[in-house]
């Protein structure tokens, strides 16, 4: 029997696979948070996680958390420093990989989380948070996006988190994980690596607002194993981050 799983659970697994053992990871909230815990529990037991509020953890939080400041993310941490301390480590080049989400993306991996007029009226988004810093300073970045035409734009209205640009000193977008597939961004263009089970090349082309390289025969993203699913459902028991709906309950 094939276990059923949600797209979000598949994205968590894909995020976990981007973390190699021994790496220092700048962890975001939502799916990357679960991906970090999953990687630690499976193939990357010695990975270390930094949180922008200053928390450093080498094991996942003991209970479900909604924000990185929640008490279960503090208890059992290896260190609780300040924001400037972990950002300094990031700037120094001590962070191998960081995760960032965005509302809009362009072919160079520029992310917009600040403001957009793509719908015809001005919409204010929350802003950079640590995203712009991770994009600038991490050894490589993994981007997490909902795959919709209005979000995949030839040019984003505002570059909150810089992608590839001439003169970049370090890092840049390496991988893009979306609701439809996994894409390589390391060469300054978006190239499909695997499509999630059931997704066709045309689905991806139709959901992308710019020309995108999708070969007609691509492997399917490997589905979560029973153990991986069990981990995710322990970490997110109500499906708050990984349920079918993108919106909170």
């Amino acid at each position, binding site marked *: 029997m094939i276990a059923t799983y949600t797209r979000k659970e598949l994205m968590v697994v894909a995020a976990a696979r981007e973390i190699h053992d021994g790496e220092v990871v700048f962890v975001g909230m939502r799916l990357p948070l679960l991906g970090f815990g999953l990687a630690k529990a499976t193939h990357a037991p010695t990975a270390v996680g930094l949180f922008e509020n200053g928390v450093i953890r080498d094991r996942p939080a003991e209970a479900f958390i909604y*924000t990185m400041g929640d008490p279960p993310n*503090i208890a059992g941490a290896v260190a609780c420093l*300040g924001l*400037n301390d972990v*950002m300094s480590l990031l700037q120094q080049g001590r962070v191998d990989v960081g995760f960032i989400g965005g509302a809009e993306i362009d072919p160079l991996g520029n992310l917009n989380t*600040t403001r957009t007029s793509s719908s015809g009226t001005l919409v204010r988004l929350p802003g950079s948070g*640590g995203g712009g810093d991770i994009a600038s300073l991490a050894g490589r970045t993994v981007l997490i996006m909902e795959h919709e035409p209005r979000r995949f734009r030839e040019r984003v209205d505002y570059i909150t988190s810089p992608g590839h640009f001439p003169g970049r000193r370090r890092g840049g977008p390496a991988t893009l994980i979306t609701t439809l597939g996994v894409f390589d961004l390391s060469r300054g263009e978006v190239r499909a690596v695997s499509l999630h089970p059931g997704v066709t090349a045309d689905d991806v082309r139709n959901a992308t607002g710019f020309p995108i390289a999708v070969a007609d025969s691509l492997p399917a993203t490997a589905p979560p194993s029973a153990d991986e699913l069990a981990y995710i459902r322990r970490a997110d028991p109500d499906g708050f981050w990984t349920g079918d709906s993108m919106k909170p309950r």
Partner: protein
Amino acid sequence: MHEIIRQQRRDLTLVGPISDMAFDQLIAAGTVAKVIAAWVGNVAGGSGYGFRRAYEQGQPRRIVMEDHSNFTVGLALKAAAMGLPYLPTFTGIGGDIIRGHPRIRPVEDPFGGPDLLAVGALKPDVAIIHVQRADAFGNAHLWGNLGLTVEAAYAAPRTIVVCEEIVPDEMIRSDPNRTMIPGFLVTAVVEEPGGALPSSVQGYWRRDFETFLSYHRLSRTVEGFQSWLREWVLDLPDRPAYLRHMGGAVLERLHVTERRLAATANFAP
């Protein structure tokens, strides 16, 4: 924070890296003229609707936004805390935040390295911080989620420490490395248990997640926000009344009664 709204303060500038719904409430209540921040919204829910209405429609008033990343807010406060005009950084190069930014300018490395960005010092008039415990002189112990609390307290000429409990100064002296803010920097110390709710305070309060979500739902409309504002701010005189309005059952659920104590450290001379 709610008292600022009750006193009808106006034209405030808010400073913070990532703000949760506190900024949204102050903005939607019309107290704010300018926001200097990296992220404004509702961390678990997403959009801050009050912030969006102010920014997109000028409702209830127009606000000026000084966009930052977390690190540039941190560096701006740190520069002020260090008594410097600016601190250099590599963050933000290649992006739009730094373009035409009033507080971020290109700067040459005097030692011949690659060009940098200078983040100008940011000195808030007042820092309001919540800590676990302080003595009557304002010497403050805090632990857990630090963020930019310490930088803010150092940068601002006036710092108000709100604490869960005022303790004898001997207790503070027993663990001086945990004193993140020395009392001579503190203008006023306020004992206000539960003063940070619905946010968490390590070892004292869990995060009241339901309140963040219900505010997120209600604040979607102006009418919803106004009813929230009446119920939770305008019709209540003070913080103890807010806690009573939350109700005993909720407080009991949020109050941390378990103990997981840090190992002691020997300070014997």
